[in-house]
């Protein structure tokens, strides 16, 4: 069999620009981190910084892979499906690199790394998520889909919902006082999951995906705000009213609260989707492209 650059071509063997672009982009954060590491740009604890950086990108890739199906529907962009497995495999590669960097950071002390994974519940959770990603990456080829059968393969790969959840929990638990980014990720995770659930449950919802997505954007942002307040109440005994009120303080020195970010990102997706639908309606020939 001749060499075939799968990440760059479609099923018919033609060059696939979307696949090729995504393939290249998936390397960027890793190479960027490696470059910063080599140049000494990661501060006085470079391994720690690199571990965190690669870990955050793992989560982002898991999210992007979870976002493919909703985005494909919302944007009416069927080709997007062609990059889903690639993004998922990248999530595994980054997760593996994340663990390897932790090894390096612990001076290759295998016993310590193993005992830490067993002793610290957030590391156990992260490790289970990594094993899950490994199983999905190993079964990500066309040959494996054929071998498992499409139905069983799909059921197996639905594990990514659980893996995504475990990864977010891992991110939360490793945070000290600042849970800003994990809160945003949790909010977006809720949005993606709710969208899938609603669309799967209701035929009416399938007919108006943009309406559903924008409604759920508001719901998810509200849940993010509420969840943040509950988190601070449970973890730090901060009065919920004070955390809720922080959402209404706008100050150039402060980052917008996670609820606003979740709202902005999800609504931005909806707006892009709406614009694309407008364009598609005017130029129907694009729909077949």
């Amino acid at each position, binding site marked *: 069999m001749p060499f075939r650059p799968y990440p760059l071509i479609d099923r018919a063997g033609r060059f696939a620009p979307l696949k090729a672009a995504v393939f290249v982009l998936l390397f960027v954060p890793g190479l960027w981190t490696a470059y910063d590491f080599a140049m000494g740009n990661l501060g*006085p604890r*470079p391994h720690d910084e690199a571990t965190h950086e690669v870990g955050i990108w793992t989560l982002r890739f898991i999210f992007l892979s979870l976002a493919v199906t909703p985005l494909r529907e919302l944007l009416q962009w069927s080709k997007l499906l062609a990059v889903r497995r690639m993004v998922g495999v990248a999530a595994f590669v980054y997760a593996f690199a994340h663990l390897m960097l932790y090894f390096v950071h612990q001076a290759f002390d295998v016993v310590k790394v193993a005992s*830490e994974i067993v002793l610290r519940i957030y590391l156990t959770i992260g490790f289970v998520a990594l094993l899950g990603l490994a199983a999905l990456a190993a079964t990500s080829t066309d040959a494996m889909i054929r071998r498992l059968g499409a139905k069983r393969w799909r059921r197996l790969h639905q594990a990514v919902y659980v893996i995504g959840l475990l990864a977010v929990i891992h991110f939360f638990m490793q945070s000290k*006082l600042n849970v800003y980014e994990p809160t945003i990720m949790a909010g977006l995770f809720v949005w993606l999951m709710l969208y899938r659930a609603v669309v799967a449950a209701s035929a009416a919802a399938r007919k108006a995906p943009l309406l559903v997505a924008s409604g759920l954007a508001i719901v998810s942002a509200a849940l993010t705000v509420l969840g943040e307040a509950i988190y601070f109440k449970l973890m730090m005994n*901060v009065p919920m009213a004070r955390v809720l009120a922080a959402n209404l303080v706008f*100050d150039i020195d402060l980052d917008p609260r996670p609820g606003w970010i979740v709202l902005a990102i999800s609504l931005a997706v909806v707006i892009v989707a709406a614009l694309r639908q407008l364009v598609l309606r005017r130029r129907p020939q694009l729909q077949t492209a």
Partner: protein
Amino acid sequence: MNIKRKKGWEIPESQATPETVFRNRRRFLTAGAAGALALGGGAYLAIGQGGDAVAQAQPDPSAGLYPAPRSMRYRLDREVTEEKVSTTYNNFYEFGTSKNIWQAAQKLPIRPWQVKIDGLVAKEMVVDIDDLLKKVQLEERLYRHRCVEAWSMAVPWTGFPMKALVDIAQPTSAAKYVRMETFNRPDVASGMKASFYSWPYIEGLTMAEATNELTLMVTGIYGKPLPKQMGAPIRLVTPWKYGFKCIKSIVRVTFTDERPRSFWEVSQGSEYGFWANVNPRVSHPRWSQASEEIIGTGGKRVPTQLYNGYGDFVASMYTDLEKSGERLWM
């Protein structure tokens, strides 16, 4: 160099001082002389490396007090951390939760600066930092510094024993604890605008801890006034405890009979307590404290020592407390 040498000085300075620091001191003296000439007075412009160039845009009125003579009683088993490393990697949540806050911290005005001394004292007072500095004897000490996040550094602090401050304050016999408080300035410290943390930063020590010979009120580092990101103009250093005990930019010292509840105890009491003594055998709930990464060494790890290696100075304070079930190690 006019250095007062304490008893116990037996080895040449080149052996005790890493070469880089030794050279830095030279450079510092040159800069100091040039500055003194330029200003025609005792003050000088610190021409520092890295972080402190901005910090010292205004001449620091206490600059003439540095470098102070080094005490040889406190030895290191490792290299002194490079200045540009330690002055650009700082936990100072008042300026944000990242460690890259050294630039943001330059907004803090440190003159005039007053420290209020109150509570169970003979007479409450408000003392100006420069007046306080005239009443005490500054000395340089090389200490290890162990962060609760399992990293460490070793730095030449300059300061005076906290016992001297206690002597000035004259607490009554009813005083059992010292409570210390950081500035409350959300207008210059934007991290303090995060309204759901329990500002201002509070820390506390028992009277025995406060008067222990290791406990230092620090006003300088690397033979210069303390840069703002490290807690200028005055901070606490207790090298046998995790770093978060070492409260920065102190504005108030209160003697009390009630155990203070610190910023971290209030925020995350399950992980950070009042005592916070370093112990490699007692894990943080989320990570092992058995070893530490020395910052700026490209990831070198060394075993952590009980009381961060200062057991000879402090362990006796805790023998009874240990039996009473106090959470001494977090």
